[in-house]
């Protein structure tokens, strides 16, 4: 009797998985149920949130002064860099006008916070605290202060799921900033490694090269930093080189992420 019940549940699970994998019928229900899970996620994050609110009160004055000084300095530096950027931006716009190609230069951002990482260490998917009601859309690119992190793969009412570029089922079109060589970076399941696939041995890619999004395929806007080439292995007899890339975004560390608001133009 117990065994027949088990078989029943196994069949039920398989039916559910097939339905979830092959069709969209469960998506609405799922998004509803995920909302139920939000209190749980909130509870988990409460101590961390509380700590960030309260910890300044317990810091000593000198460390605060030190931190303030440091921040001022950093602000000063970024401001200086921004000045340069501004003039470059104008120049770029002028050149683009000359070439008669329009391009979005400014993107709007929405700040979100990571609530939870997928419990499976091979699946690099995070739950963030912004959802449909905040205007998050499917496929929305996600960055941190340094570079591309991933994209939105599921939206619920108040939360959404973001797949990182290092997930094994994720690929991102990139180009070498030095010479424009294009490739596709595939996730390896390791947070500090991407692999470029099907790159011929003669391609001009060197260790230390910076790769940015190429914007091809329409999934990601062009020009966001993705990673630095860390390894270039040429195995004798292999048709393609093995190229490993270290992501620039702090995938394992950032709690705060930025969702790029402008929808990428269709290619």
């Amino acid at each position, binding site marked *: 009797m117990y065994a027949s019940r088990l078989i029943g*549940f196994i069949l039920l699970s398989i039916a559910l*998985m097939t339905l979830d994998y092959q069709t969209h019928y469960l998506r609405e229900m799922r998004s509803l149920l995920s909302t139920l899970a939000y209190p749980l996620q909130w*509870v988990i994050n409460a101590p961390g949130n509380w700590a960030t609110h309260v910890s300044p009160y317990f810091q000593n004055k000198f460390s605060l002064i030190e931190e303030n000084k440091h921040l001022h300095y950093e602000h000063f530096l970024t401001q200086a860099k921004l000045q340069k950027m501004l003039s470059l931006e104008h120049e770029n716009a002028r050149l683009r006008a000359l070439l008669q190609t329009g391009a979005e230069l400014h993107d709007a951002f929405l700040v979100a916070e990571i609530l939870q990482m997928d*419990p499976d260490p091979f699946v690099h998917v995070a739950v963030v605290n912004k959802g449909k009601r905040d205007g998050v859309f499917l496929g929305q690119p996600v960055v941190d202060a340094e570079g591309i992190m991933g994209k939105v793969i599921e939206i619920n009412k108040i939360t959404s799921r973001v797949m990182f570029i290092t997930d094994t089922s994720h690929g991102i079109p990139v180009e070498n900033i030095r010479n424009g060589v294009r490739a596709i970076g595939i996730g390896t399941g390791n947070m500090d490694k991407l692999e470029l696939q099907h790159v011929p041995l003669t391609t001009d890619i060197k260790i230390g090269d910076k790769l940015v999004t190429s914007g091809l395929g329409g999934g990601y806007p062009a020009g966001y930093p993705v990673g630095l080439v860390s390894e270039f292995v040429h195995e004798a007899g292999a048709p393609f080189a093995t190229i490993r890339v270290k992501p620039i975004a702090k995938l*394992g560390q950032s709690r705060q992420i930025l969702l790029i608001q402008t929808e990428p133009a269709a290619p």
Partner: protein
Amino acid sequence: MRQPLYLQEKIAIFVSFLFALILMIIPIPHVLQWFWPEWLTLFVIFWVVRVPQGVGITVAWLVGLAMDITGGGLLGQHALSMSVVAFLANLLRSRIKLFPFWQQALGVLVIVGFGQLILLAEQCLLGNPPHSLLYWSSCLTSVIIWPAVYLMLNFYKNHFVRLTGR
């Protein structure tokens, strides 16, 4: 012994599963994630062994489904593995209940390993199998942590689920 549970006992068990769910999804450093024990599986084993009239395949299946919803996997993934875990725990119940910890550990290892094997099979079917044998390390840590989980849940049970005291 075999009476149905009071409402407060059901709530106590529900709360413990909620706690296990929180332990499963709590953000931990990525390196540690490999070695993070399968809390939910351990909790299911405990309740199936100690309170078989309250927690069986059905409850385990629902708990697995809750894990799928919060964890974000395919619906039914954990549900399937949890129902098998409950079935095996029920089979090995008398053995786990009577034996000293180190012998219990063997049974727990088998059950947790089976649960993980099913999850692995599902992931392979989906086309993204894990690339490293580190996948199995959570089984070992689960077994190592089992005595502590058992003792703590036993304490919890004796305080909130007074089955023997009726």
